[in-house]
């Protein structure tokens, strides 16, 4: 987009994220517990039905 006003707005938006990245201020970031829980859930929903039918 060639609009200078939008370019400034885009820059502002990018800086917000750069600031968050610099300060590590990512609220609601997925942590190792989330990934572990997701993996565990996948294993349970895969092995559980598999065992049920075999």
């Amino acid at each position, binding site marked *: *987009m060639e609009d200078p*006003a*939008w370019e400034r*707005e*885009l820059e502002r*938006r*990018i800086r*917000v*994220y*750069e600031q*968050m*990245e610099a300060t590590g201020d*990512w*609220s*609601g*970031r*997925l942590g190792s517990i*989330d990934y572990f829980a*997701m993996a565990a*859930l*996948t294993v349970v*929903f*895969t092995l*559980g*039905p*598999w065992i*049920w*039918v075999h």
Partner: protein
Amino acid sequence: MSENRDYRLAAERGDGPLLPSERLWGFWEFTYANAALAIATWAFLIGGAVGLFVGPKEGIAAIVIGNIIGVVITALATCVATGRYGVEQFVFLRSMFGANGSRLVYVLAVVFLTLGWLAVLGLMFGHSIDGLQTLMAGGEVSAAPATGGKVIVAACGAILLTWFIVAKGPTSIKFFNMIVAPALVVLMVVMMALILSKHSFSELMAMGPLDPPFDNKTVNFIIAIEVNIAAGMSWWPYLGNLARLTKSERVATWPNLIGIFGAAVLGEIVGLLAAVALGNSDPTIWMAQIGGILVGIVALAFVAFANITSMANILYTSLIGLRQVGTAGVRAIGWELLCFLFCIVPLLLVIFTPGVYDGFFKFLVWTSALNSALAGIGIADYFVLRRQRLDLRALHAPTTDSAYGFWRGFNPIGLFSLAVGFSVYVSVFNPLSLAHAPAFLYLTASIPSCLAAGLCHLGLTRAFARRLGWGAYPARPGGRSVSPATSR
């Protein structure tokens, strides 16, 4: 104030990242939006298709196994990054395929998928109307071939009606969505109650499949799982752009496991049980038989209506994306004309290949050959190579200035890896003939395709990309990348 609103609208359309304060959806809002997307008539179709291969017990297991694998992989590949940075999904893809490569992926993954689904759902509408007419005339609905003239005319009418609705804008679509999703849940509960009133749970679990293609039960079971992994992965083109509207990375990811997974499993199980209990995988046939004439008329009328809503949803989403990734020439085409141009191929498919409805699961599985490879590349690139860090400036810079410019806007490594993943898929499992390699019985086809594409992308990027100056990949784990666009 007005200018701020315009900027926010531009960001919502995908021109820039949405700020955390602009995100609309919390956990339950996103769960509802996901469930509304997944609770659609295609759930009945997929459930019925599963009933062709395996009986209800194995079918329920295959539905749960396939969907959890497909949804988790797809959510990791698309929702984590878009949920963190608020970027449009195909803008995010520039980091792994380049801007032009992202356009190519859009055409392959979204346009083809949408064209196919428009034709399938249009034909389902045609069958519903045909069945409705027969019931109202006091007749009995039979498994008529999809090539019937009335069905094709009604299917074309459905596609043209969808064009008309989408051409008018999104307001009517949102209204229909608010009615259709909860009403479909009610319909599913009624259907389930009707099935259980005629057959006990143990009777249902003892039933066999409708039309198993192989004598080997394990092969049929794995094909049923593969169909469901394909169903889970078929959300790949859509999930990222919904996830960017959520308030955080965690909110962008977990609701998929309730909304998409839970709702799709519920709908497919109803479709499976009804198909096996009534002896036909086509929802427009078993709905007409399940509860007498009155229930049949209401159910078929509602399914016809719900199909139009689903068609409008996917057409609208695809067109929004097309304008985002499209060239200036595409953006210059008027909205109504673009809508109509998009409808031409589905119309031709309906007229010349109406059999696509009966073999729709083959089309669904074909899409997984692509989606599984895309998911593998997405996970390898974002989590392993980039360590979950994106250069937003490079994502939004013109190709010539961008650190994600790769080679003329294409990342040859990403696209080659996509081809590798696709090739692995079709060499392990042929969706058309259902022929399969021995490895299919242990790994399915989507999982090796996902792994092959991801590992190929990882290996080739580490070997060549940094040396060629492609993609501004960090030099070491956690390292900051320096890009031409960033350093300017």
